[in-house]
Each structure stands twice: as structure tokens, then as C-alpha cells.
């Protein structure tokens, strides 16, 4: 074998020893996905074998030398029906099976911990609720359902973790979600799979799966001093949201305590569940999301808060279990909206505000 270049030879050996059809299965959904994939591969192989076997055996049996005169055979309705119905049946099985997996991957369980991901050209910014920030990396514990809430700041990106068999597009202007439960500790690839411009191929990173203890250690190690909700609180104060969203009887806006997940009656009729997407819309396009009983006077914050800022605000609102915290912010910012540019000696500089 010396006539093969040693480098290639080494490569071959290395590859053959590590040969795999699929990346490691590191999430709970991965084995389910793989089962369907193997089923499909199997069906394809059987189909291909049938076609190839037929073609080869006909080619041998009926080659001109052996079978000089063709016998004209018209079609057969029975056969046509057979190869219409059997593939159709198989495809429908694949459809249902696939739909079940799709349903599973994109329906997070209620108790999932939420991590925010903002995609921008060309990096992934990950925001943990505890205030840990990561770039092009994602640390998650095993044995716990993790929901990712994704959004893009510019173009379409796609957050892909092949080892988990999950992938979701990060869309400009809209939240998308995906969830997984990691099972095996290790470091796995994180890719942006939607072409997003020049450095698309550099928008990659690592997903680090840790045992719950190590994860806890990592969390304390990467503490940034303030949780996401605290960031949101500062922003809430510096934007003077509490000027209207407070608990006074004459408050111009609804109180935000316990609003997350609640069913809100809308001024335009109908109700809506106040989830992340709704809260984001209500901040950026408030007039279309007015709660019943309030006047549509809230100004739009489009262009004034970055996506991270919106995330921090949502996280803040999510954690509002009582009006106490809002009252705190009211006390620190007693000024009408519009004059929030006043020297904020009392409010610490809030992250997430777009500088004019």
C-alpha cells in the first residue's frame, strides 16, 4: 500500500475507525429522530434494491442476444395500483412519524428553563436568565429541558446542534423557540446553517453539556453580577416604564405583575396569552396590543431598545410576582416619559438601550 500517499492513508484509517452515519446522540429527541431516519434509510435501500435488482435481472434476461424479439406488454392496472398505493402508504407513515417528531422538537414542556439566543452577523449571543452572557457558546446541564428563545438582529440565521438533532431559524423581528434535553456530557458543534453573508462559515461555536453540578459551578463562575431580570429592571427604570405601568389607581397602563402567562383581554376584542412574543410586540408595536380598559397612549420603543434589551425587559416582567419591584422603580424614576434622557444619577446605566 506504499503507493497510496501516507497522509491519505492515515486519514482513511482514522476515518474508517471513527466512521459514523450520524453525529453522537446527545439529546433525548436524538434517538427518536434517528429511528425515523433509519426507517427511511431502510425503506430507501429496499426500494433502491428492488429497482436495481429488476433492472439488472431484466437486462440479463432480456438482452437482445438472449431475447431477440420483444414481447409487447401493455400496462397493468393492478401493478400500477400496487406501486401507487404501497409508496403512498409508506410516505404517509413517514409523514405522520415525522410530524410527531416535529411536534416534539418545537413544543417545549412547561417546566423548561429558558435561554435566550440572539443571532447577528456573525455571532451567536446567548443570554442566560442568571445574567451569564456567552458568545458562540452554549452551556447546558444534562437532564433538564432547555428551551431556546431565538431572535435575529439582522438577517435569517439558523441555530443548529447536529448532536441534539435540533435546529431552528433565528428570524429578524420575531421569536422562535426550540427545546431539547441533553443527555450526554461533552462538547458538540454549534452551527449557523442558514446562509447569512460573508462570514457565515465562521458563525460556529460549541455547545457544552455538563452534569448538573458542574453546570451549577459554571453558572457561579460566569456570573456577570446582575441577572437578566435585573438588567431588565434597570432598563425598565431608565425608560420610565413605571410612570404608567404602576399600581396606582390612576395608572395609565396596566400593572405588569403576574402578567406573564396570563390571559389578557384586548381592547380590540379577543384575548391573548402574554408570552414572550406578545410582550415583545407590545413593547415595540403597542397600539395593536392594548389591554382592555386602557387608552392606546404607549409610545413605540421600536429602534430604541436592542433585542437584548427587549429580552431583559421580558425577563424582568416574567419575574414580576408582585408589584413591589415596580414600586421600587417608580421611586427611583419620578419623571414623565420623554424626558428619560435627563441625567440618570439615580438609575444605573441600563444595558440594552440603543444610543441615539
Amino acid at each position: 500500500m506504499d503507493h497510496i500517499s501516507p497522509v491519505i492513508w492515515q486519514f482513511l484509517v482514522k476515518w474508517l475507525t471513527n466512521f459514523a452515519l450520524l453525529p453522537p446522540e446527545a439529546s433525548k429527541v436524538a434517538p427518536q429522530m434517528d429511528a425515523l431516519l433509519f426507517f427511511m434509510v431502510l425503506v430507501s435501500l429496499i426500494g433502491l434494491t428492488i429497482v436495481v435488482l429488476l433492472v439488472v435481472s431484466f437486462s440479463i434476461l432480456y438482452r437482445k442476444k438472449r431475447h431477440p424479439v420483444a414481447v409487447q406488454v401493455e400496462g397493468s392496472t393492478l401493478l400500477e395500483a400496487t406501486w401507487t398505493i404501497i409508496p403512498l402508504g409508506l410516505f404517509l407513515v413517514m409523514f405522520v412519524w415525522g410530524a410527531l417528531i416535529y411536534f416534539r422538537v418545537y413544543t417545549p414542556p412547561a417546566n423548561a428553563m429558558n435561554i435566550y439566543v440572539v443571532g447577528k452577523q456573525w455571532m451567536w449571543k446567548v443570554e442566560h436568565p442568571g445574567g451569564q452572557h456567552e458568545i458562540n457558546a452554549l452551556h447546558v446541564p444534562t437532564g433538564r429541558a432547555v428551551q431556546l428563545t431565538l431572535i435575529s438582529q439582522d438577517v435569517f440565521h439558523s441555530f443548529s446542534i447536529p448532536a441534539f438533532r435540533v435546529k431552528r431559524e433565528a428570524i429578524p423581528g420575531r421569536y422562535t423557540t426550540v427545546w431539547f434535553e441533553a443527555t450526554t456530557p461533552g462538547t458538540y458543534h454549534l452551527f449557523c446553517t442558514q446562509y447569512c453573508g460573508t462570514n457565515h462559515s465562521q458563525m460556529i461555536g460549541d455547545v457544552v453539556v455538563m452534569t448538573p453540578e458542574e453546570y451549577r459551578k459554571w453558572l457561579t463562575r460566569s456570573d456577570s453580577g446582575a441577572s437578566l431580570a435585573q438588567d431588565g429592571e434597570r432598563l425598565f427604570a431608565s425608560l420610565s416604564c413605571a410612570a404608567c405601568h404602576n399600581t396606582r389607581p390612576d395608572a395609565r397602563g396596566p400593572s405588569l405583575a403576574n402578567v406573564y402567562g396570563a390571559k389578557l383581554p384586548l381592547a380590540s376584542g379577543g384575548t391573548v396569552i402574554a408570552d414572550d412574543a406578545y410582550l415583545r410586540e407590545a413593547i415595540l408595536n403597542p397600539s395593536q396590543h392594548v389591554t382592555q380598559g386602557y387608552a392606546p397612549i404607549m409610545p413605540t420603543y421600536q429602534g430604541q431598545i436592542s433585542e437584548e434589551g427587549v429580552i431583559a425587559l421580558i425577563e424582568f416582567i416574567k419575574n414580576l410576582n408582585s408589584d413591589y419591584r415596580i414600586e421600587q422603580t417608580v421611586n427611583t424614576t419620578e419623571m414623565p416619559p420623554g424626558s428619560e434622557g435627563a441625567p440618570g444619577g439615580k438609575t444605573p446605566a441600563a444595558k440594552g438601550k440603543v444610543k441615539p
Partner: protein
Amino acid sequence: MSENTIVSLPDQATARIPKDNYITRENGLLSWLLTSDHKRIAILYLISITFFFFIGGALAGLIRLELLTPQTDLMATDTYNKVFTMHGIIMIFFFLVPSVPATLGNFFIPMMIGAKDLALPKINLLSWYLYMAGGLLALYTMTVGGVDTGWTFTTPLSTHYVNTNVLSTGLAVFIAGFSSILTGLNFIVTIHKMRAPGLTWFRLPLFIWANYAASILMVLGTPVLAIAIVLIALERTLGIGVFDPTKGGDPLLFQHLFWFYSHPAVYIMILPGMGVISEVISNFSRKRVFGYTAVAFSSVAIAVFGFFVWAHHMFIMGISNYAVLVFSLLSMLVAVPSAIKIFNWTLTLYKGSITFETPMLYAFGFLGLFTIGGMTGVFLGSSGTDIHLTETYFIVAHFHFVMVGGMLMAFLSGIHFWWPKMTGRMYPEKISQLAAVVTFIGFILTFFPQFILGMLGMPRRYASYPPEFQILNVFSTAGATILGVGYLLPVLYLIWSLRYGAIAGDNPWQATGLEWQTQSPPLTENFAEIPVMDHEAYDYEWLEKQQKEKGVANAG
């Protein structure tokens, strides 16, 4: 007649190419550039398409070279992005879409239905000029800096986040779209209005059915692409906001409009190829296509269902989950007619009398590769597995199996099959069989590893990649080299055959189509007198009787 072939050539010592034919009728460059003869326009198309194919091929070569190593060493990422974008645009809009229809279709649709020309000959010429204008504009774009949006022009990347030549590329695609609309329109009118007496719909060769179905897609789909491109251009220049999320627009709307054309477009590309395969398999097994009606209707079914599945390109992109279910289900349905076709072609071989000339070898290649390509399409149509496989090399491998393994094989099969009719001379058989085998091997080696790469999760459109994917990429690049040889060979020997090929005579393959019942190369008006069709398509017994009578007449 030999035992291994159906080819029967006239006595080479006495045979001559007929003096009066469409090539010799008029001379000079202008007689070609201003021609309205569908056969000459087909030749113009053939030359220009081949030109664009090799440009697209060269770009593919660059892509494969870059991917030989995990790092970006041959070109910078932005260059790489421009290269794969141009590869996609040229191959899709300037090769695959017009390939079989504009060359073989243009040449043979009128002949197969016994007409003197297409219904609108001047429009036909216009569509070639539009095609060239679009193509040259695309090349111009490439020389002045290229474009790096990917052939899908995804918004808001293409409208707000790149500074490259999106406008001129868009214009090129827009113009090429017009060319394709006019070709499709011309075919539909011709097939409806110009059929020879006696040629009913169910006597038409399946090549006609397939092209008819593809033409419907061209006429109904392409305008939507046109408006999508117009909107992109206006969004870029004036900021109309229709696709701009910051202005309340929805960037996904662009993808709806784009894929409304571009999904049917893959059927525009593959259907005419399927038509070629029907002709070739029938002819080289001397049998009527098994289940003629089923194959004919499956073409139409593909065309109709092909319009209802476009959103399966957007399963993970934020369309509603309900839409995902509907489009996934419909995508499963559109796979069925393709399966029907595969089995009908296979069963056509049953009790035939099979020979293995080059067109047949390519057709066998098509059968195998298209089966794989089609089946892997189901992987992507099923919403669950699509999550893992979409946007990876699995997609790349899938559509190259369908487009290159399917369409290009069919195109080469058709070119070899009709070469004697187009030029009056045979191609050299042995070397062309070799080329067919080389192409097949090169193809498998190039694209099969990409399935595994995709399953492993390697994203598409990456200039650099994690090192563990290298070995499969090396395979793929090695295969591409072989594939390149496989494509270069036919160009060389086909050109050689123009002068030195054996004289083919009217009907070297003993084929039944009307196009074979006239001289080769044909007269400008195709037939000395308008033929009357009095038998079914692929009626080899009729042909035998005909030849016997002719033999008697000649002897007498």
C-alpha cells in the same frame, strides 16, 4: 444486424448526408442569428447552454477545491460565497431550466408532432436572445465583482445586508425568466394547435407529455419569481418595506413568492429529462412504455401537485406549524407520481429486447440516481427529519442527485440519442460508453459522501468546516475530478463526430417517433409532406411493417 445492438447504419461507402437540410439550406453567421427555424435555434441553445454549463462547472470545481481542506486557503470566504452563488445561478437559470426543453424540446417537439415549426418561431428566436442577454449580464456581474446572496436571494440579506451586485444579477434572472416563459408558452401552443392529423393526445410520445407539463410550470410559475425579483430590486433601491421587518414587512413573504416558482422549477428541470428517459428506455428495449397513460398522467400530476408543496423549503423558518403539516402531507403526495414513473420504466424492460448503447447506459444511470435522489427527497419532505437534515450537505446531495444525477444524465442520454438526427452522424460508441460509465462513477463518488456529510450535520455554504469532515470532502473532490473528465469527453468526441462520425441515415435506432421518419439532418420544413399518424406511440410492430414495405418497394 448484430446481436448486441439495434444500430443499423446505411452502407458507409455509398451513404451521403442529404445535400438539402436545415444546416446547409442557408449559409453565413447571420442566417443563424436571424433564423426562425426551431432546429437552428435549438443548435444555438445547445452551444450557449454548453458554454454556460462549463462556466458553472468550473465554478463547481473551485468550490470543490476550496473544500479539499477544512481551512479557507484557496479563497477568502466572500470569494467562496460569490463562487457558490454564481454556480447556483448559472447552473439553475442558465443551464438546468433551459437544458432539455430549449435544446432537445425545441428541436424535436415540432418534429415529433409532425409540424413544420413551433407555433411562434420569432418568439422562439426572441427567447434565445433574452436567454443570451440574461446569461451575458450574469457573466458581466461575475466579472465586476459578483454577488454573494446565494441563488435564493434570501431577504433581508439580499435587500439590506450585502453590497454586491444584487440588482444586475436579479435583472439577469428576470430576463432569463422571460426567456423561459416564452419557451414554455410556445411549446404549449404548439402542442395544442400544431399536431399532425391523427396525432391524438394519447398517441403523443411521452417526451411531449413531459415537456407539456414542464411548460405549464414555466408559464404559471416564472411570473411569480419575476415579481419577487422586482420587489427585491425596489426594496434595495427605494426601501419599499415589503420585505423589511423594521418597516413591518415580512421577510418570509419573499420566500413564499420565491419558492412558489422555485419549487415547481425543479420539476421544470426534471420533467423534460423524464421525457427523454421514456423515449430512450422504450427504444432500447424495443417495447412500448409500460403503462403509457400512467406515465403521461404522472407528468401532469407532478406539474399540478408541484405547485402545492413550496413551503416545505421553509419548515424551520417560522411558517406556522399548521402550514408545516399541510405542506408536508402534500409533499408526500408529489413523491408518488415519481415512484410510479420509476417502476413503469423498470417494467418497460420486462420481456423487452434490450441493448446497451450509450443513451441507454445514461438512462440506467438516471434510474438509479433518480431513485436515490427521489427517496432522499422524502427525508426532507417529512417535517421531523427535515429539522436535522435541512440546510446541510444532505440537501446539497439530494438536489444534485435529482438535478445532476437525474437531469444531466437524461440530457446526455437525449443528446446521444438524437445526435444522429441532429447532425446526420453517429457519435463514436465505445468511447461514449466509457464516458457514461466514468460519469456515473464520478457522480457517485462526488455526491454520495455528501449525504453522509449532511447526516453528520455539516452545514451547506460553508467555506471552512470542522476537520473531522475532511475525508468525505476529499472523496467528494476526487469524484468531482472524475466527473469533470466524464463531462469533457462527450464534448470532445461529439465535436469530432461532426466530421468523422459514421453517417447515420434516417433512422439508425429503428425508433418509432415521427422525427425518425424523415431524413437526418432534417429539412428546414422537417417533412417533405405532412405526416399522418395512424398508429400509437412506440408501436414497434408498425415500424417493422413499414420497413418491410419499404424494403419491398426498394427491391422492386
